[in-house]
């Protein structure tokens, strides 16, 4: 009898192991297939795009008809980089651009630094209260730069600060930027193109985020592009290149773009107001807003387009230690899950067109199930191997295929980078990046998935905070 029970258990375990391993393989292969589709589509898009226009041509072609834009930069404890990044925003080449820095109740001297460096004076500027946010304590206007406004408000989080910026802005377009980021001087002239060519349709445009660590920064501008010297930011450079040159560009082309990064996105103000602005109850406010805009337009049957471009570039400081990086990744995962489950009724719903039928299922596979399945694989493979339930030959072969496929996709992203943007400074840097492509599969990728799993856990525990993000400030050379 006992023997029979033991046999049944062993059989059950064997069958279960087969199923779980099968699931891991199927999800892994599907993810790889999606990555391959993205690569092919992105290559097609970037091939047909024209060569980058030079600054003078861009200005001549677009400045006369460029609509006003408000740059909104929420800042919370950004004392280390706020002056540099505000200067960067003020140096942007764009005919009608006001810069709104929102001090979200910082505990450090962010506001003092702004007041001192930009000669701020209190202003009684009035605004239209159309989105929810914590009370504004004071609005300041710069005596040096008429287009610089600083909003000092009670702490309410990034989404809350962005909403305050939307309220105070008076332009038809607004651009959300992270206060620790720096836009290329021509970034807005590049990004405004879809709004010019399809003014009745385009409601949001996302740009390309790149890692600024290793670049030379002067007066708030990247004057010379360089690769990070440290390994962690270098591996993130590989990740960002893959995400912004392949995934976002392809998703945009396929009309399934569900995310415009909060670090750099331009939105039509009335369209954002129509959906109530940013949701202050999630840490994935950028993903949530874009998905809500999709939902609103699809439900009301209003024609629209949401676009991601490879050319407008925004530089950001990538975390340089594991602790900060892990916090960032956990928060991203939590934000993705919060948004996904909030809009889960769109999943597989034909009413929501491609977003419901393709975008959301892809998101389910990559953002929701991806880390669970991959970590499950890490745990099960050694256990099953030790218990003799795993065919070692097959396990090793699949592992090799997964790694090689990851390298192949990353190599593809480098090709796209070289044919479209050409921003990797030297052949030596290119070699270093290639080494990053190989290294990331051994340790970094696994670590990332473990952080994402922790993000899952935080989501289940309904954790709401952002966590501290310590900035070192850009390495400025004067």
């Amino acid at each position, binding site marked *: 009898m006992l023997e029979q029970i033991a046999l049944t258990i062993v059989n059950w375990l064997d069958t279960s192991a087969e199923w779980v391993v099968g699931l891991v393989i199927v999800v892994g292969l599907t993810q790889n297939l999606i990555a391959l589709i993205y690569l092919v589509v992105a290559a097609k898009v970037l091939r047909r795009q024209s060569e980058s226009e030079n600054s003078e041509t861009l200005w001549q072609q677009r400045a006369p008809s460029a609509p006003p834009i408000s740059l909104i930069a929420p800042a919370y404890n950004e004392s280390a980089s706020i002056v540099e990044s505000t200067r960067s925003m003020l140096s942007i080449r764009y005919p009608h651009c006001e810069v709104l820095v929102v001090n979200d109740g910082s505990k450090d001297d962010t506001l003092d630094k702004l007041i001192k460096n930009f000669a701020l004076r209190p202003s009684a500027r009035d605004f239209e209260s159309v989105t929810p946010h914590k009370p504004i304590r004071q609005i300041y206007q710069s005596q040096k730069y008429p287009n610089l406004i600083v909003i000092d408000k009670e702490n309410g989080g990034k989404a809350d600060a962005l909403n305050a910026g939307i309220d105070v802005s008076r332009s038809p377009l607004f651009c959300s930027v992270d206060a620790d980021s720096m836009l290329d001087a021509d970034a807005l002239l590049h990004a405004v193109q879809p709004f010019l060519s399809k003014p009745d349709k385009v409601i949001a445009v996302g740009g390309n985020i790149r890692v600024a660590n290793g670049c030379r920064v002067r007066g708030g501008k990247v004057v010379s592009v360089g690769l990070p010297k440290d390994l962690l930011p270098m591996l993130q450079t590989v990740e960002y290149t893959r995400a912004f040159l392949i995934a976002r560009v392809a998703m945009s082309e396929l009309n399934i773009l569900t995310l415009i990064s909060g670090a750099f996105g331009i939105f039509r103000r009335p369209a954002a107001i129509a959906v109530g602005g940013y949701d202050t109850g999630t840490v994935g406010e950028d993903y949530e807003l874009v998905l809500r805009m999709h939902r609103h337009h699809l439900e009301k049957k209003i024609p629209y387009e949401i676009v991601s471009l490879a050319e407008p570039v925004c530089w950001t400081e990538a975390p340089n230690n594991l602790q900060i990086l892990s916090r960032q990744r956990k928060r991203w995962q939590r934000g993705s899950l919060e948004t996904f489950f909030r809009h889960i009724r769109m999943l597989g719903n034909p009413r929501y067109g491609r977003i419901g039928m393709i975008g959301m299922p892809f998101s389910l596979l990559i953002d929701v199930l991806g880390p669970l399945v991959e970590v499950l694989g890490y745990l099960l493979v050694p256990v099953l191997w030790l218990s003799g339930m795993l065919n070692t030959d*097959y396990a090793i072969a699949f592992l*090799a295929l997964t790694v090689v496929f990851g390298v*192949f996709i990353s190599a593809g992203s*480098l090709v796209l980078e*070289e044919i479209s943007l050409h921003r990797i400074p030297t052949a030596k840097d290119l070699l270093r990046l290639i080494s990053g492509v190989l290294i990331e599969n051994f340790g970094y990728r696994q670590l990332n998935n473990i952080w994402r799993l922790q993000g899952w856990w935080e989501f289940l525990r309904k954790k709401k905070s952002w966590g501290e993000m310590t900035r070192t400030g850009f390495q400025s050379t004067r």
Partner: protein
Amino acid sequence: MNELQMIWWTSLILALASLLVMLILVLRRWQDERATVREKHQRQIIQQILFSYMNSDWMSGQKDLNNLMNLNKAGQQVLRRLTIDLCYLIQGQERKQLTSLLDRTGFREECLRDLRSKHHESRRTAASALQLFSDDASKAALLPMLDDEAGAVRLAAAVSLKAMDALPDTKVLVQKFEEKNLLQTRGVRSLFREMARRTPQVLRKLAASDDCSARLKIVIADAMSEAADFRVLEDLYRFAKEGNLNLRTTALRSLGTLQHPGAAVVVGQALDDPEWQVRAIAAAAVGQIGLEEFVPRLAALLDDDNWWVRFRSAESLTELGQRGVRALRERASVVSHINDNAGGRMAALLLDEHGLHELQPAASQNRTTTHA
């Protein structure tokens, strides 16, 4: 081949492909780096010869020209890029000199060839670049491009033809744009604005035609804001009274930009429009034109239900001199029950924002109105 072997072979092929791709990238980059250094050096030399050619007399100019024409293929490419950059920066005789030089390098011929390219981006670039030349062959080659399958090419051709003063009949042009749904694009708007500056009568004729759609009227109304000929006002007055909301707002915006006092009647009527968008733009136009007689009506609009109408009215009052400021100050000092005194708060804030509190002492404090 069994399954296992297939997996290994796939991995091997992908690995080799990745390595090969990365190797090619690095080698290509090394080659590019060397070429960039060479080109930088070459550009400096060519730039010197080019400037010398532009500033010299006929004799020495011929020598420079010969030097430029005898450049090798790579040098010719550098010369071409340099000349194009300069063409967009200068005007007049020097520009003509440069375009003639460009022509000699074979650039015009290449553009004419590229108009037949199967890549629409090449056709667009070529159509756009041909505006640098004004010869008949370029004009003749550009005209068929208005029927191109790509909207961007049609637009680029139209812009170039406009620069050459060779646009076809406007109705035909509009039809070409409408076929590709280009009317609302900023590019077409810019083109129409340019037409309004130079040939407003053409737009007037178009606006008067029976088959002029509301979409086209909006583009015309927008362009008319750039017209120097005040006869366009008649068209704008008509547009400002039409049923289409976008047309009414566009016409009023243009009237505000043109700043002609004759628009007073139309703008005054628009202040009572049922749509808030129209009231807000009409209120802004009052300030732009400087219609002081509307101060009482703007003061009344400070209590409008819509924030933008209140804001634009208050903003306009700040632009209407002492009368406007006085009205704002009076409204700011009065506590009203309408819209929770939104009008009073708006007046006070605009006075603050424009630093106008110090101009005059408050007329009265803590007065309460009872009008509903």
